[in-house]
């Protein structure tokens, strides 16, 4: 069902009202969302009063929140937790459900349109409310222009999945529609009829301009994305290109730790699997002349790519987390897109389609073997 809520100049207040109502009705037991205080903190909020501090529109993403969902709702069985997700977080959520890292029935998702987010350090050193208002004002025309002197995160500049609903695929229980709307007047809501009725809302249709704004933005972004991906694949081409792309990597593994898809607690790079004895290291150095220390840098990135690129949601958190400013995300997203195309798979599109690494067909890749 579709509906529209009037915001009377206070979009945040209107959304907080919805959150409070769902908490009071007992639809959710708590909300997992960003709170503003000194900066942005994600929290699991039980106290209704604290919801006043909810900051649904702050254009920043300290972590991909789907990771936190998999922390609180892995096993489930204790009622529903509501969670506010941006589209790339929502897509990571869908992947994590399919990888059995989230109990789907323990979560109620509120999705939202997204025009982009800033790097955390840029956000933290700026006038937060001005950034937030500037971006809210841009939804109507669907033109994302970063605040003066700043840039959006690289992933956001080329993001094509910026709405929470997928044609015929997964849709969150509730979706906040901002594109093509003036959020200071009204926000479109789409979701389960029971929920909307429980909120006292009537069926109402969104302005037709909303869909036009969405498709115009998608077209623009698709072109930009193609260009950026081609450029990155050109740069990282061949072993020399790849080594130079990663030349400043200090092997801190932050890109992996912050990737929502890299959930394995016993990842081979966190275990002693590839540790050797001193005499083995010496033999290795003798054979090769010299061995880089710490070893296995290229191996780390290529292995990670083999393990997870089929489900990479292009959220760019790996780039945001890299202390050396390596654009890991564009590389993984660009390769990911190609690998996903082999299987006609779009991460986060549907709960039914299995991730490519979780299934196989007897009649496929017949030319390989």
């Amino acid at each position: 069902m579709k509906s529209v809520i009037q915001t009377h100049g206070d979009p945040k207040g209107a959304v907080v009202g919805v959150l409070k109502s769902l908490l009071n009705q007992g639809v959710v037991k708590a909300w997992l969302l960003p709170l503003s205080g000194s900066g942005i903190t994600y929290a699991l909020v039980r106290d209704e009063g604290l919801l006043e501090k909810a900051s649904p529109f702050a254009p920043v993403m300290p972590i991909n929140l789907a990771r936190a969902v998999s922390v609180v709702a892995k096993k489930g069985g204790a009622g529903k937790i509501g969670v506010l997700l941006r589209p790339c977080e929502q897509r990571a959520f869908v992947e994590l459900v399919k990888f059995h890292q989230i109990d789907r029935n323990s979560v109620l998702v509120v999705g939202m349109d997204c025009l982009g987010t800033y790097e955390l350090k840029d956000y933290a050193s700026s006038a937060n409310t001005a950034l937030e208002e500037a971006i809210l004002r841009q939804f109507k025309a669907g033109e994302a222009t970063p605040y003066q002197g700043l840039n959006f995160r690289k992933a956001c500049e080329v993001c094509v999945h910026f709405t929470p609903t997928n044609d015929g695929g997964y849709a969150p229980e509730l979706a906040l529609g901002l594109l093509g709307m003036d959020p200071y007047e009204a926000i479109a809501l789409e979701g389960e009829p029971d929920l909307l009725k429980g909120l006292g809302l009537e069926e109402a249709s969104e302005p037709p301009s909303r869909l036009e704004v969405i498709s115009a933005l998608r077209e623009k972004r698709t072109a930009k994305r193609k260009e950026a991906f081609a450029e990155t694949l050109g740069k990282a081409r061949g072993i020399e290109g790849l080594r130079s792309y990663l030349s400043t990597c200090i092997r801190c593994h932050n890109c992996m730790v912050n990737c929502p898809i890299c959930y394995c607690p016993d990842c081979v790079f966190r275990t002693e699997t590839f540790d050797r004895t001193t005499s083995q290291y010496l033999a290795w150095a003798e054979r090769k002349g010299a061995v880089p220390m710490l070893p296995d840098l290229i191996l780390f990135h290529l292995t990670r790519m083999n393990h997870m690129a089929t489900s990479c949601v292009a959220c760019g958190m790996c780039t945001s987390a890299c202390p050396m400013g390596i654009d890991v995300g564009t590389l993984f997203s660009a390769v990911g897109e190609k690998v996903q195309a082999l299987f006609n798979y779009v991460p986060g599109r549907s709960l039914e389609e299995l991730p490519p690494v979780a299934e196989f067909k007897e009649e496929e890749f017949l030319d390989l073997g």
Partner: protein
Amino acid sequence: MEFEPRIVGFLCNWCAYSGADLAGTSRIQYPPNIRVIRLMCTGALDPIYVLRAFLEGADGILIAGCHPGDCHYLNGNYKARRRVAILKEILKELGLEEDRVWLRWISASEGQRFADTVKEMVEYLKAKGPSPMKNPIL
């Protein structure tokens, strides 16, 4: 001196490994360029071992398992085929010469096929030259 490619073979215990054995006991000639690692099933091969072999100096990788339908563990070879498809696509996109990775189905009785595959691969890699992925430092 002619370039002698080094091939690392990941062979399934139940088929290709026995096939290689048979090639040996039947005295079928094939070039000595392959070092064999025995797996219990191709489905047990993580791409990390293929990548590591390349980075450590392999010029080619042969992954050989049971014919479709004959895997001892029912579907390990189908899973392996998907992983190889993903690996090859990634290598291709990064310009890392995916044609150095070969997947072949070789049964325990196909000693000749094993020998022919190694021969064919050695010739292919000789024409291609050494892998650029070796010596990945300095």
